[in-house]
Structure formats: C-alpha cells, structure tokens
C-alpha cells in the first residue's frame, strides 16, 4: 500500500518548475471519504496531489502509518475524520485527536518538520470544504518542498 507510489510517476514529470507534492491522505470511511466523493461528484476542482487511503475511522490511524509514510518519502500526510461528536463509532475521532496531538507535539520536539503532517475534520456534506482544505495543504507543502530530510536514504 505505502510503497506503491514509487512507480506512480507524476504526470508533470519533465517540467521541473511544476513540481507537485505527493500527499498521502487517510480519509475516514463515513465522513471524509464521502466528502471527497461529494467534491468529485460535484466537479469541484482540487489539486491532484493527494492519494487516498480509505480507513474505517480516524481512530484506526496509528501514528506508525504517518511516520512510515514520511519515511517512505511522501511529501505530506493528510489525516481527515468526522467532526468531533459525529463519529460513526461514537468516540473514535476523540481518541484519535489525543493521539494526533501528542504525535504532532513530539514531531515538533524532534524538529521533524511537523507541518508535513496535517489533521482536519471534514463531514460527508462538505465537498467544498474538502477541496479548499486540499488546496491549503498542497500549497503549504509546496512551500516546504520535497521531503528529503526525513525520507529514508536507502
């Protein structure tokens, strides 16, 4: 799942000025995945920088996934779940929120570009919001440039 992107050549290759970041997006099945789907169905444009991994709940996302993605060379990680209180499994995203909070804090402490890891809440009805968020994250990661610091060397 995580290693496949190496053969996934960006269509902008050749034109180096138009470097597009590759962002792995973990979307929760019940809200954010449906939100992304709505954005697609409504033909709302957003940058083609994200590759989606559907997870049952944001509570399913282990910090290992995020760290491993960075190690594998993804330029950014996007994690999205239901708004607090709206979790399909009642408290999955609340448990996840604490987990993400300490992950982000420890990344900051270690000085490992915490801005590459982004968390957000998107509901199934928020296609517009999803597209705006992806735009925001993509431009933020374009500013950071390719993930050379934390990607594994060999």
């Amino acid at each position, binding site marked *: 799942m995580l290693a496949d992107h190496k053969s996934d050549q960006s269509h902008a290759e050749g034109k180096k000025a138009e470097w597009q970041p590759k962002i792995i997006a973990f979307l929760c099945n019940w809200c954010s995945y449906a939100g992304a789907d709505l954005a697609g169905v409504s033909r709302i444009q957003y940058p083609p920088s994200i590759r989606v991994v559907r997870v049952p709940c944001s509570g399913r996302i282990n910090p290992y996934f995020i760290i491993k993605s960075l*190690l594998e060379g993804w330029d950014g990680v996007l994690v999205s779940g239901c708004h607090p209180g709206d979790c399909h499994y009642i408290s999955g995203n609340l448990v996840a929120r604490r987990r993400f909070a300490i992950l982000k804090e420890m990344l900051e402490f270690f000085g490992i570009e915490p801005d590459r890891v982004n968390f957000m809440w998107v509901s199934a009805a928020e296609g517009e919001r999803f597209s705006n968020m992806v735009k925001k994250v993509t431009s933020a990661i374009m500013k950071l440039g390719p993930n050379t610091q934390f990607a594994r060397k060999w």
Partner: protein
Amino acid sequence: MVTAQEHGHVLESKLRTVASELLKEKKVDLIIGYSKGTIPQRSSPYIARNPADTSNFIWNNLGYTNLAKYLLAKRKKKVDNKEVDLKIGVVAKGCVGRAINQLIVEKQVTRENVVIIGIPCNGMIDLNRIYEAVGTKEILDIALVGDDIVVKGRGFEKKLPFNENINTLCKACKIKTPPITDVLIGESNNLPIDEKFQDVIAFEKMPANEKRDHVQQLLHDCIKCGSCRQACPFCYCKLCFVDQNKPVWFNKTFDMNDILVFHLIRSIHLAGRCVSCGACYGACPIGINLNELTRKLEKLSKARFDYVPGMDLKTPPPMMAFKLDDDQGFILEE
C-alpha cells in the same frame, strides 16, 4: 540535618527488619529489593524468599532499576493444585511506587497482590557524571561519606558533592516517597508538585532546525540495543513495534531517521504514562541523556492533560480517555 550517608544507613537497617517480619508473618511470598551489585557502581535487583535472605538487602543511591518491571512477569504458585498469584513485596522509592500505581491503573498488576514497602528516596547518583569525573579508570568502590560521594579505584580517590551529582530527574523530583504505601519506612519527604519545566520550555522555543540538530546530536550514538525498552516498566507489549515485521515500521539501520523513529515512537507510547524514574537513562550503555525526552514527556502530560502519572489508582491515563472539548489548536481550519 541528616547527611545523605546517615539517611541511607538508617533506612537500610529498618528495611531489613521490616522485610524479614513480612516474610516471617507470611504476608508476602517474596520481596523484591536491591542487593550489592556485581560491579560497585550499580545495585542489583534481588529477590528474598525467606527471612534469612533479607540481610542481603541494601539501600543506597545506586539502584537504577525500576523494580516495578519485575511485577510484570506474573509468576504463579501452586496451592492445592490450583495456580494462585504470588503476593509480592516491593521495596519502592517514589518512582517505583508511582510505576506500580500506573501499572495497576493499566490493569497489569492487581493491587491485592502487591505490598508496597515505601522508602523516602533522596536521589540516584548520575553515573555518567561520575564517569566524566573519573575518566576511563576502573571504579573499585563508591560510597557516600557525609554529603559527598567518594569514588575509589587503583591509585585515585575522588570526592564529589552528592547534591550536584544526582540524576537531573531526581533533582526535579517532587514525589520521592510512593504516594500509596502498605508499609512506610521512615517519613515521607514528598514536596508539592509545582513544576515549571523551564528547561523544556527553553528548548521548545528554539528554532526547528536547531532542535533537530540538538536531538540528532543527542541520539547520534544510539545503537538501538533496546536497553531503554527492557528497563522501562511500561514497555510490556507482547510484540514491540521494533520487532514487528508485518509490516516493518522502520528499518534496522543506523540511518539517523531510523534512530529518530525508534525514539519518537517510544516517547509517543510513553506519553502520559512515564513516571520519570530514569531507568532508561540508567540502563543506556552509551550514556545517552534520555532524561531530556523524559522531561518532555513529563511536561507534555502535565501541560496538555494536567495529569501526573501514578499518583492514584482511579484517574485513567490521558491516552486511555478523552473529552469532547480537548484542545484542537493543531487541527487545520479552512
């Protein structure tokens, strides 16, 4: 004012009588404590099974092992062909007591099966400072004389002030006696918890690249031997993430990123649980100052969740609980 040397001596003799009485009255099956180590600068964990064994117990400032770790073995005894839990006495300084409490909250240890023999601790000697002062010479004897540490070896004798050469965690420690005890030796010397974490805050204010350089410098020599994990009372996963190979979470190389990931995930696992006992620091064969990570975890738990691990048996640790109105400043908004 009692000197550090007298403090230890008084406790040691009291500890032996209390321990042998507990064993004589069959209140416990065995008692875990410290005895003289195989090298002079470390006390070994020691298990006393009958009253005569208790004369081997010692109490000094060289017990780096967190004895709560030994409760996790969960050995049983046979009574009328039935397997029954052992009742274990533990010689507990403040951090060992807190670790036991935390393990009880995490349902790894049953309260009824532990007898906490509380000891007011006055700090553990920071061995790396001693090695710095002594150099590569072999240490043959290390003892407290008055308020000084006296290190002896072939052709040298060094005197170092005790208060300045204890572990940095012990310097900042407020809970020197276990918060919950069954038997208390001596008097509790706990202080009110009013930690400001100035050292951590000063570090956090540094720019990201300086922080990165500092952490990389700190962990540069790590050989990922896993001593810190083995010493930690809270690393009791049946299969550690380090050993998982389906998938492999990070590579077993000495690439800096792999070392960083090991320590990063280890600290994430310990967030809100670490009792800052310094066992990882004491166990590290390279002498990496893991206390810096421990201090950060201590601050994270206090500042973010207002939780001090191991103080009672009721409050669930922060990573086992949640609130609807938790801080979510780090989450992106449109």
